[in-house]
């Protein structure tokens, strides 16, 4: 009997979390080795929904690429498209109208709020508070309606195009957005009551999944996850694009680097996004919604890189052009892939339940990891 016990003590308990698992938010496979409930190592296995988007882009014109970057991180579709459009525009040296910049910035921030709301939903659900899931989805609905009214799409909008927008915003757009700001300011207080202040939630996230600033920088953990560790990485602040240079907003930073810090960064970012929208929404200038572009865009030969702050971190587009109508090579720097690489460091030595909380606080979107 003693031998059996010895044997079992030395064994590591290997569990496959995923590819089908409620808390991996998609088809991510995590191979955990456990001792008791303590996680000894996490090995993410990606690629279950790899679609070869970067390769597909090499056979598409620059206008057509937009509909693929939508489908990377589908929760920040607008923001991904913004990066591609800006890369093409800077390559061509086009100055886009002010109106387009305003609308793009507002849309980006709305997409960020919607994305953070869905993160809040799934965060609550991963921690076992199912009610949070439905409140978040309910409050995301008006944003999707705003999107649908102007762009025609709810999740995948394909709204931006190199040189401007596909179509102008709906006349009711401003009124709806202003109503929504008032509505959501009220609801976010409820979020705090339900989850942020909850003692169980606090204990489950505080001190869990620590990531120091140095580790965040070395793994390239950006976005709210990086800022939770004190890594100043907000592209909107440090490399302003769109209208971000002209609006006032804070870069939310927290120094703790645990799951709770990442949670609070996202909660505060939602409020900050509301502020940004509020500053812009009344001042949208009149004008064209697009620049007249040639039907076939040929980028001059060279290499172009554009980065934006997506909802989950820094999203970058690298375009290498040989002067043809198709890009020679496209590389997409997706935030989730780098964020996921830090999972092992965060989860080492924690419990399984903590791993779920850490995963929820990283907020990964699998299509963005696999591309």
């Amino acid at each position, binding site marked *: 009997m003693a031998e059996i016990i010895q044997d079992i003590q030395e064994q590591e*308990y290997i*569990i496959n979390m995923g590819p089908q*698992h*409620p*808390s991996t938010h998609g088809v991510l496979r995590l191979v955990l080795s456990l001792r008791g*409930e303590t996680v000894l190592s996490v090995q993410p296995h990606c690629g279950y929904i790899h679609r070869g988007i970067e390769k597909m882009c090499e056979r598409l014109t620059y206008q057509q690429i937009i509909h693929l970057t939508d489908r990377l991180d589908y929760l920040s579709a607008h923001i991904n498209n913004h990066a591609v459009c800006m890369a093409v525009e800077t390559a061509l040296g086009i100055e886009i109208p002010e109106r387009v910049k305003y609308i793009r910035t507002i849309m980006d921030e709305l997409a960020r709020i919607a994305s953070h709301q869905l993160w809040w939903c799934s965060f*609550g*659900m*991963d*921690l*076992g*508070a*199912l*009610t949070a*899931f*439905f*409140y978040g989805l*309910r409050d995301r609905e008006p944003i999707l309606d705003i999107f649908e009214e102007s762009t025609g799409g709810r999740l995948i909008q394909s709204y931006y195009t190199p040189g401007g927008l596909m179509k102008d915003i709906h006349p009711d757009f401003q009124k709806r957005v202003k109503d929504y700001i008032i509505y959501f300011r009220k609801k976010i207080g409820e979020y705090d009551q*339900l*989850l942020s202040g*909850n003692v*169980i*939630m606090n*204990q*489950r996230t505080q001190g869990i999944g620590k990531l120091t600033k140095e580790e965040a920088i070395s793994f390239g953990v950006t976005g709210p996850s990086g800022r939770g560790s004190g890594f100043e990485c907000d592209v909107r602040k440090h490399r302003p694009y769109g209208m971000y240079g002209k609006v006032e907003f804070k870069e939310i930073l927290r120094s703790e680097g645990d799951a709770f810090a990442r949670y609070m960064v996202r909660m505060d970012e939602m409020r900050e996004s509301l502020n940004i929208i509020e500053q812009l929404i009344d001042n949208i200038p009149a004008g064209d919604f697009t620049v007249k572009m040639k039907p076939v865009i040929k980028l001059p030969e060279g290499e172009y890189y554009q980065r934006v702050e997506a909802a989950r971190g820094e999203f970058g587009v690298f375009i290498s052009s040989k002067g043809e109508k198709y890009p020679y090579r496209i590389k997409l720097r997706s935030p989730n892939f780098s964020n996921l690489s830090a999972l092992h460091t965060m989860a080492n030595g924690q*419990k*399984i*339940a*903590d791993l*779920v909380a850490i995963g929820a606080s990283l907020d990964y979107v699998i299509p963005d990891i696999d591309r």
Partner: protein
Amino acid sequence: MEFNIYDFTSFTKWIDESLNAAMSPFWVMITEMAIIGVAILAFYALVGLFLVYAERKVCAFMQNRVGPNRVGPFGIFQTIADLLKLLMKELVYIKNADKLLFNIAPFIVITASFLAIAAIPFARGLHAIDFNIGIFYVVAVSSLGVIGILLAGWSSNSKYSLIGAMRSGAQIVSYELSVGLSLITMVVLAGSMQLSTIVEAQANGWFIFTGHVPAVIAFVIFLIASTAETNRGPFDLAEAESELTAGFHTEYSGIRFAFFFLAEYMNMFIVASIAATVFWGGWMPFHVPGWEGFNTVMDYIPPFIWYIGKTAVIIFILMLFKWTFPRLRIDQLLTLEWKYLLPINLFNVVLMAFIVLMGWHW
């Protein structure tokens, strides 16, 4: 025979006498067993089906959505449809599973919850067995359910199930203490373990009012600990969906899964009944000493309605727990029990004993 909705004693006595007149004592015993068995079984199924529906509707309203509304008006036949679906589903057998234990486990869980119903007083005279150790019996019997969960987790030959079973074992074994101690606090106040005596003692005021602060503390602790013992959220670590997919019943399908499901809801019902009986006076109407008119009005409401109403309120509180809070981690769960509930509980028993000794209770 007169059928009196306020007192079932004469009714049950009439059944007994007419049976005795017709046949010999041995067969009377067998027939009565059969009648009670069938009655409780029917009640069990009804309550189970209704609770599943109620939970869906309640949680839907808490989550600001509509809930089941397709099968029948307001979706009331949804659970029946689900039951039919589960009955028709294939029973999946797991490779290398211990088939005997795998099959036995759901029955152990459901039998444990079934046994406890026998001791619950539903109304005056409507009481299957009135043990003089009633509370002790309920605690004892409900501790059997965990064996089924442990067996289910181990015999499915699945790692998620095993972890779920381990968690459940640690959880139930430690929370049984708090359930027991908080009930003992009330036994000290009542001076009896017999459930009928306890109910009768609350004729002039429920224990939660007459027992001062210790009774309230005991009630709160009982609610928390019994939520944990029934494996319901926020203590549903054994079946933590986001961590262990479904915990100990991951590998179960069809009607065997339905057994686990039904047993969970019945355990909730039993816990709520015990709480209603011990703390809120069971089927006893709400009386305020001195207000004669008010008391007679209250007496008009049949005891069975009182009992169901109180149980429903407590079940609602349990649902409110489940649908509001995030799940605890296993170490927090044990911290809560051993650092908070148990010391407070022990202190509470002493306090209650002191109050009873000094004769401060009404």
